[in-house]
């Protein structure tokens, strides 16, 4: 099937659009050299500085003018240390998760945007883990500022960062059930109690899903 136009929403309850369009999933392939810009330089430097490059880096994707290195989680800390110390990516801008429930055994992506102050460059690390085994080694030892970001990603997705000094919820209350940013977590699923008024259960309200 092909795209049949610019328009098309899928599964919405509140629009009456054409809805006949099939969305194309993102490519799963690797980009080919030359990557352009400073990306070849970064890949070469990392390959030189890190002997296990070919085992650790699953694929390299260049899209939208950004370089993404897909790293095996076992090698994440080693790659991060090389990137920080040899390639001068002094800063990690945190981590954020993405949940893809349709990707069997590869449900979660954890994405780390890195910044090099020395070379004025950016690169993105991506680690993919399964929902059943959502463990990623922590990078707090490498970049201390990742502490809260990892707590937030744990809070929102339930990804466990092994070795984190205090992996507790940060935005949601401590006794909260579930992880709100997962795709199977409904929007507005919590009944709110007001004095003397009742709120219909989520499944009886107007649907957004």
């Amino acid at each position, binding site marked *: 099937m092909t795209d049949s136009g*610019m*328009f*098309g*929403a*899928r599964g*919405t309850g509140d*629009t*009456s*659009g*054409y809805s006949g*369009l099939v*969305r*194309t*999933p*993102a490519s799963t392939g690797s980009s080919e050299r030359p990557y352009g810009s400073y990306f070849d330089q970064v890949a070469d430097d990392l390959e030189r500085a890190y002997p296990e490059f070919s085992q650790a880096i699953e694929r390299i994707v260049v*899209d*939208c*003018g*950004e370089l*993404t290195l897909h790293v095996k989680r076992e090698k994440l800390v080693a790659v991060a240390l090389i990137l920080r110390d040899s390639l001068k990516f*002094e*800063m*990690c*801008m*945190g981590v*954020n998760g*993405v*949940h893809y429930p349709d990707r069997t055994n590869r449900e979660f992506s954890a*994405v780390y*945007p890195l*910044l090099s*102050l020395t070379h*004025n460059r*950016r690169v*993105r690390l991506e680690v993919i883990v399964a929902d059943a085994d959502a463990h990623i080694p922590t990078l707090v030892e490498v*970049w*201390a*500022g*990742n*502490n*809260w*970001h990892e707590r*937030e990603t744990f809070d929102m997705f339930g990804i466990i960062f092994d070795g984190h000094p205090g992996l507790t*919820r*940060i*935005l*949601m*209350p401590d006794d909260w059930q579930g992880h*709100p*940013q997962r795709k199977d*977590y409904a*929007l507005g699923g919590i009944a709110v109690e007001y004095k003397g008024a009742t709120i219909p259960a989520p499944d009886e309200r107007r649907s*957004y*899903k």
Partner: protein
Amino acid sequence: MTTFDPYAPSRDTTEGTVFSVTGGDWDSLIQEIGSTKEERVVVNMGPQHPSTHGVLRLVLELEGETVTEVRCGIGYLHTGIEKNMEFRNWTQGTTFVTRMDYLSPLFNETAYCLAVEKLLGITEDVPERASVIRVMMMELNRISSHMVALGTGALELGAITPMFFAFREREIVLDIFEMISGLRMNMAYIRPGGVQQDLPEGVIPKIRDAVKTMRKNFKDNTTLLVGNSIWLKRTQGIGYLDLAGATTLGITGPVLRSTGLPWDLRKVQPYCGYENYNFDVITADTCDVYGRFLIRMNELEQSLRIIEQALDKLEKLEGAPVMVADKKIAWPAQLALGSDGLGNSLNHIREIMGTSMESLIHHFKLVTEGFQVPAGQAYVAIESPRGELGASVVSDGGTRPYRVHFREPSFNNLQATSAMSEGGMIADIIGAVASIDPVMGGVDR
């Protein structure tokens, strides 16, 4: 417990005696605490303390007046904006992101829109006039945001007058926002592809006047605070964080520049055409609260310079489009700003309701369903008043975002509270937190 104090009832727990202080008579509380043998006191500051910038909770461990440990409790303002955006179309997203960091709404909108434009591949197609308007609006916003930081920061350290001066200037900026977008805050003015609508008649002379007024008015706060010996004693050498600490904690913005590193994304990784403006990156090398205060003070003048250059450009670009030409992306709902505020453009209503069925269909489809964004992920970072504001946007090719995550500088920089405050005096926590300038709406999202 000797006597019952209605303002500070106490109860014994396994961890020691717990006092619940609700204000009022502190003498009896101090007496009671003094009568215990405990050296270490744990104080729960907030979540509603007046000087904790919104709803921030600090758990302090004290020995006497010395702080031995600080922990932050956040999340009180969490609204699930990122989750909500997954259920609305791409254009509606601006209405959500503008409410994250409510003191810099235009920065949130710009970061988000730049990321969406990157995914759409239309970064180059955004009209120049739209980019210049974005820059001008952002710099005005930087002034209003820095004014809150300076005013409340001074107020928290006991100086009341700077607050009045700061809010006077902020009011000038908010009036301009109201004239342009119809709203003082949370405008959703910057949209994917450009801006919501062109500048109204007579706004450029008004901004020129405002720039003149503000340049004169800024001196009021400068003379009050710069070199003031009380202010120096409360800020110099306080909240120390050096470059190594800042990089490992991912700190950006004025806090990073107070370590002497001239890192400003407007200069090093320009966006929206910032490379075409003349301005200086302000730094300090004191690594303390005073340095950060001076940086914010001096950045005001740089923002005024950029605004003046933007106004010159706008005069040359009179009548140029402010939205991408692609009608499949540009919002068709033309709005008009009347004397009674922002509303539907009568000409547009006439066209879709009276003359063209195709226009009506197009309007309906684009407004209800929205446009599609090619699958992929983009990260765009801009220099907000608080540092690197990064928008991570993921699309699956649909009409709604698959995932939006904001790398909020307030959220990240608040982590430095412990590093800045531990080992110092309890009173200096206030100055240190104020110098980070955290906005809890951005921290909690």
